[in-house]
């Protein structure tokens, strides 16, 4: 039971990291990025290809993160521009559909070029005992990455000027503009950051299980569920929701079966929408 719980936390931190990237973009631009998971997989495949050419992990990971960030920035600068000119529900709907198109393009490309490619990162070392449960080093490093990224994001949003600007746009875009903040610039940079975070999810996931080239849709859906349960736009909410859902996921997989886990997650998202639409940490219920 303790082992299942710890595995749940390891998975949950990954899910939190996945949800954070999605929630940031939604908070800023009102765009629900339906290709978030595909960005992650794209980064993973770039890393896998670079690793196959004999490069080290220190070379492959930055290139993978850069690739994911580049595609994200490119989407923001091109097809997202007409979206930002709209308001309200029209913006949400168009943004969502266009990103669905982008995700489908990435999916189709990967399926065509690299149908059986996968990123697998092995961290060697003896299992380390945590409260009496031997944990694989890969899982621990993956969790450390997620925690470090979460902490860095927290510091960035709270204590840097740029981070404060970002939060002010999430609160009120018009108000931020009046204070001299350029929402378009911040949005582009946060899109890039979100892409890099997606790539980072691929890295940390690959340490526990292979990231295959067809995993995009599934990762996107997991990110969506985490973001909705955590409250769209809430960074800390996404991490809390990620860890909770990770534990729920592993426990239900252990006691019922893997096939049931997405149904449990769907139920969690549905219950959140019905009872706490602003998320588990949300103030307006």
């Amino acid at each position, binding site marked *: 039971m303790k082992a299942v719980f710890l595995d749940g936390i390891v998975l949950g931190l990954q899910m939190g990291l996945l949800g954070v990237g999605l929630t940031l973009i939604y908070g800023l631009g009102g765009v629900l990025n339906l290709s978030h998971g595909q960005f992650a997989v794209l980064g993973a495949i770039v890393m896998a290809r670079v690793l196959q050419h004999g490069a080290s992990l220190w070379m492959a990971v930055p290139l993978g993160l850069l690739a994911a960030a580049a595609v994200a920035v490119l989407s923001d600068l091109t097809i997202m521009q007409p979206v930002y000119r709209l308001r309200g529900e029209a913006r949400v709907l168009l943004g969502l559909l266009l990103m669905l198109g982008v995700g489908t393009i990435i999916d189709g490309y990967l399926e065509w070029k690299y149908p059986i490619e996968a990123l697998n990162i092995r961290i060697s070392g003896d299992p380390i005992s945590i409260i009496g449960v031997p944990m694989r080093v890969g899982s621990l490093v993956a969790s450390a990455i997620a925690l470090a990224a979460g902490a860095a994001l927290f510091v960035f949003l709270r204590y840097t000027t740029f981070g404060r600007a970002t939060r002010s746009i999430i609160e009120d875009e018009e108000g931020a503009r009046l204070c001299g903040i350029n929402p378009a610039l911040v949005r582009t940079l946060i899109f890039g950051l979100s892409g890099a975070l997606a790539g980072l999810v691929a890295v940390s996931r690959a340490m526990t299980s292979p990231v295959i080239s067809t995993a995009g849709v599934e990762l996107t859906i997991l990110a969506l569920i985490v973001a909705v349960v955590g409250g769209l736009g809430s960074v800390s909410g996404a991490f809390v929701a990620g860890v909770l859902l990770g534990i729920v996921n592993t426990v239900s997989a252990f006691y019922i079966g893997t096939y049931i886990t997405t149904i449990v997650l769907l139920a969690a998202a*549905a219950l959140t929408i019905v009872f706490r639409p602003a998320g588990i940490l949300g103030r307006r219920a």
Partner: protein
Amino acid sequence: MSGISTQSTSASRALELFGAYSPIALTAALLALVPLRYSDSRTMMTVIIIGMVFAAYTIAFNIILGSTGQLFLCTGALAGIGGFTSAILTSKHGWPFIPSIVLGTLLASAIGGLLSWVAVRRSLDAIFTGVVTLAFSLSYENLVLGRKDLTGGENGLRVKAAADTILTTRVAPYYVFLGLVVVYLVLYRLIERSHVGWAFRSLRDDEVAAELSGVNVTRYRVYAGLIGSAMLGLAGALFAHNREFIAPTTFAFGAVDVRVLVMLVFGGIGSMLGPVIGAVALTIVDEALVDFAQLRIMLYGIVIVVLFLGFRRGVVPSVAALRERLTHLGRRSTPAAVKPPGSTPRS
């Protein structure tokens, strides 16, 4: 005096009915001719049968997205619920053919209605509908892959209940599915012309105004979810029996949802014949690009982006509107799209 006026109203009523339903009859007549050319080839018959099945899916999706603005990203999963339910009941539990299809249809309908109910009760519903239905798509897929004892997992499931019926012959199934499409189109028109259609239009144009004038927005959205999902389940169940074999890929997200979305947007969201036009056009394009099958998904993605950036009301209505503008033929009358994402409501 009164006699004359009744006569003229009944005449104008007949004319109106003719105007409302003749496009369906004309479409049906044209589509009925297609097998004349292809009846020799089993391969081509399969292609056009699948085209008809997708036309049926797209009409159903149009009732959900086009009429009430709910972005259901689980058309494949709902059709799959119908297909797998019927297939499992007939092949594993010895149910007869028709009751199994009825149960599959009802189950799909109930799930679709429930998803609608969960998502539309809050603001931000475009997002919540998308999230809940996508999550349902994934749940369905994992369930099909996970319950190997029932569904055969990745190996698929053989469906033999319709082996001796016309559903598994070469040409007749085309007419079965054409019949289904015609029934769906008539249903679409009937709804459009009823009080439900009035409610749909009002909540689609302006949700707040509809709510304020006494339209129960939640209830009508759930109606659309129930009806559209039942149509998807029924088409999926019939398709399963026609194919005699179903696998997770038969109703997969990439295989169904993306295509249905492209077909609907191409033909024109919220127009009656749009789904049929989109299905026919995409079937032709797919056939022309059959040698580039692996590129197909990428192409669909590009088409989605281009369509939503350039032709938010659908290619067919946009081209029609353009032609009308060029020739100055009367007032512009583009079929209204579902909250065309491009037009911000004037307020």
